[in-house]
């Protein structure tokens, strides 16, 4: 894989309307279903797939690098999964993707770039999203 220029800003124009767009979330907030294996707080390049209909009481956070107290009461503080559904229901957005993707904390940038990121890109592409929202705690 070629190196990315320090000055390069990857940019894909948006063509379309929000009210007909399918929107997904990719997050580094360490959110996961309570039934899924937790992330390793010290560093973890794995990811979890979160169903689009997941709600706060089904989710938790394994991440020790930000204050999670509010988000554990209401996951939408950092991972607006229910907010996205609400906007789709009222017609502001077309729909959500069938699932979203969550990563934990990691500073293993080379491993993320060479292994995790290509896998994540392949996974996300299968959702056929029009827009991906990124959140980071």
């Amino acid at each position, binding site marked *: 894989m070629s190196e990315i220029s320090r000055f390069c800003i990857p940019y894909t124009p948006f063509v379309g309307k929000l009210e007909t767009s399918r929107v997904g979330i990719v997050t580094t907030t360490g959110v996961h279903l309570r039934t899924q294996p937790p992330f390793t707080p010290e560093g973890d390049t794995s990811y979890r797939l979160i169903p689009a209909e997941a709600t706060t009481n089904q989710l938790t956070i394994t991440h020790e690098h930000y204050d999670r107290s509010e988000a554990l009461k209401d996951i939408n*503080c950092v991972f607006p999964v229910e907010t996205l559904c609400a906007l789709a229901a009222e017609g502001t957005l077309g729909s959500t993707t069938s699932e979203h993707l969550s990563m934990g904390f990691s500073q293993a940038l080379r491993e993320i770039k060479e292994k995790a990121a290509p896998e994540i890109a392949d996974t996300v592409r299968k959702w056929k999203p*029009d827009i991906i929202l990124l959140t980071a705690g």
Partner: protein
Amino acid sequence: MEGIPTVLITVDPEQSWQARPSRAFHPVGFRLGQSLGPAGAAELHKKVLTDALDLLIHPQEPGTIVHKEYPGYSQS
């Protein structure tokens, strides 16, 4: 290979800028762990999310971070 339009919501624009996001939205004064607002603030969450998504339909220079204040919301 085609890309996917993205928008980032960040409470730390200086750090986020280093990752060169294509578009980023900064709700000014929001804390880490509350990037869309505090627990239970569903309308604020919705407002921040729609403001971030608006960056898609009002394109800026690639890499622009848009800052917005929410006067009714204080985290001092």
